[in-house]
């Protein structure tokens, strides 16, 4: 059974309903990321799990118990805030020790555990400093240490790396993942950085407008997006509409497309990455999965060229490592290999 499950959760701010009938299950020891554009409700989901916002309806079940109405301070959850939210008037030591003090842990043990934790995040020498005297990365580590030291049942992180520079961000995410695995912590992680999210998560929740678009392992989401939204999110830029005609799938201008399909639908929307389309010279013998096109703009990307091409079905973006740049206005053929085509649900 899942460690944490959100059952039919609804959360609103006044008249603005942010989450509606939201369902999510997370297993013990799993690292799950919430990914999505700004305003889609990631923070709200995390805050609902923590208990900072009360769901209008639905349940939060944790370790088999109904956690919906448990007061925030009675839960053993760790939270890392986007702006760290360190206590400005306390030293690093007291910040980290805060949770333990609240649990009335003996002083000697507090000392020992805080020391250990500061070592783990590499802040041994900083115990007596105040947050104002630390760099962003160091404050971030304090926030992490403060959350980890209480041995939380669940670790919640809200874009913890978004205030750091790019290099530090990569370092810290590796560190967070290491610690998480070392301590076998169940973790919910909010981000809108796709690469960050894929690199550290066991499973990813892609969200849009307060709804889950897809919940799966990073590889699956990257390779097999289920909706147009997710597809666009992970780099599919070309979309085509196909419909059933005489038992075959054809485009609007009647060209046949072959693809792997399990379910028999009347209409399909398919997505292809720019890298996955093959450019051919005009006059090949293949006719299925091929569109004729005219180059409109070409851009040199370094390892390949990117072409914006015009077809009867609209514009497509194609990346190709051709030796010479194809001239603007030249006629070409685009081949869509069957194995690179993904069927997606249409965006509403």
């Amino acid at each position, binding site marked *: 059974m899942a460690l944490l499950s959100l059952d039919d959760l609804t959360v609103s701010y006044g008249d603005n309903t942010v989450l509606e009938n939201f369902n999510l299950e997370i297993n013990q020891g799993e690292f799950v990321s919430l990914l999505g554009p700004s305003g889609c409700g990631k923070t709200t989901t995390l805050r609902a799990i*923590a208990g*900072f916002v009360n769901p209008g309806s639905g349940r939060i079940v944790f370790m088999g118990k109904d956690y919906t109405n448990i*007061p*925030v*301070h009675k*839960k053993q*959850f*760790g*939270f890392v*805030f*986007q*702006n760290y*939210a*360190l*206590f*400005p*008037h306390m030293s690093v030591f007291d910040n980290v020790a*805060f*949770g333990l003090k*609240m*649990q009335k842990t003996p002083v000697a043990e507090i000392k020992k555990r805080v020391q250990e934790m500061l070592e783990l995040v590499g802040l041994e020498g900083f115990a007596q400093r105040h947050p104002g005297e630390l760099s962003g990365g160091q404050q971030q580590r304090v926030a992490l240490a*403060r959350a980890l030291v*209480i041995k939380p049942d669940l670790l919640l992180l809200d874009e913890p790396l978004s205030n750091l520079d790019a290099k530090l961000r990569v370092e810290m995410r590796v560190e967070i993942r290491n610690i998480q695995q070392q301590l076998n912590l169940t973790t919910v992680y909010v981000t809108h950085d796709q690469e960050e999210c894929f690199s550290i998560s066991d499973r990813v929740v892609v969200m849009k407008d307060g709804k889950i678009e897809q919940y799966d392992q990073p590889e699956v989401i990257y390779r097999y997006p289920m909706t147009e939204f997710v597809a666009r999110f992970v780099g599919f830029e070309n979309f085509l509409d196909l419909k059933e005609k005489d038992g075959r799938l054809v485009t609007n201008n009647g060209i046949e497309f072959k693809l792997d399909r399990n379910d028999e639908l009347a209409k399909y929307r398919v997505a292809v990455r720019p890298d996955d389309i093959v450019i051919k010279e005009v006059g090949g013998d293949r006719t299925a999965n091929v569109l004729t096109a005219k180059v409109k703009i070409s851009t040199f990307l370094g390892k390949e060229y990117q072409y914006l091409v015009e077809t009867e079905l609209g514009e497509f973006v194609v990346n190709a490592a051709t030796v010479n740049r194809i001239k603007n206005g030249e006629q070409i053929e685009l081949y869509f290999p069957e194995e690179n085509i993904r069927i997606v649900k249409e965006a509403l």
Partner: protein
Amino acid sequence: MNEKGKSLTLFTFLVYLFLIAPLLIITVTAFGQSEFLKFPPDSFSIRWFLNVFEVEMFMRTFLISLEVACIATFIALLVGIPAAYVISRYRFRGRKILESFFLSPVLIPQIVFGFSLFNYLVIKLRLPVFTGLLIGHTIFIIPYIIRVISASLANFDYEIEEAAVIFGANRIKTFFMIVLPNISSGVVAGFILAFINSFNNVPISVFLTGPGVSTLPIQMMSYVEYYFDPTIAALSVLLMGMTTVLMFIIERSLGLSYFTSK
């Protein structure tokens, strides 16, 4: 700076002369020798400063003013801080109206407020004058407290409180361990602003004083009616000394920018 021009500089200088000269004149006059208020004095002495301490009523009423200002400010803090907290931390229907309500005592003409309170508390309810005085001062300084505390709370990230709560502190512990230490400068500044305004108040006190219960400003007003010697000037200088100290504390705790950003 050419955008400022010479005539503007001169104008500003004259306006500031207008603001400062009267207080300087009082100060110089206070050091005069003669029985009359004269500027500039013919000869100098500190006899009028000594005289301030001779007038028993000044000393008595000074202590009463001090007592009233301290107690009223303390009560206003007790009542005002929780209210300011809810107003700045929670969004609810009618919040704006409630905020205006809490700030409304500054809109009521103080003389009217003093009169009404006297009529109600002392005449109708037969409360002691001193109680009325305390209540009057408390009510009219509540807006100062609420405004200053709200301003400090606005600068204190709510997430920090949430952090305390998620790490096991209940709301009350959070307030005393996390919020209060971080708005302490606002509390100090609010205390002083409220204190000064209570200490200097005349229009409310004028109705809520009586035999045996008077405040220093009221006493000074009646002294001026009968005597025109530099004692009041000397007392004024002493009071300005007090203002200077309190202002220094405000500057330290709140920063002077508070006064220009309403």
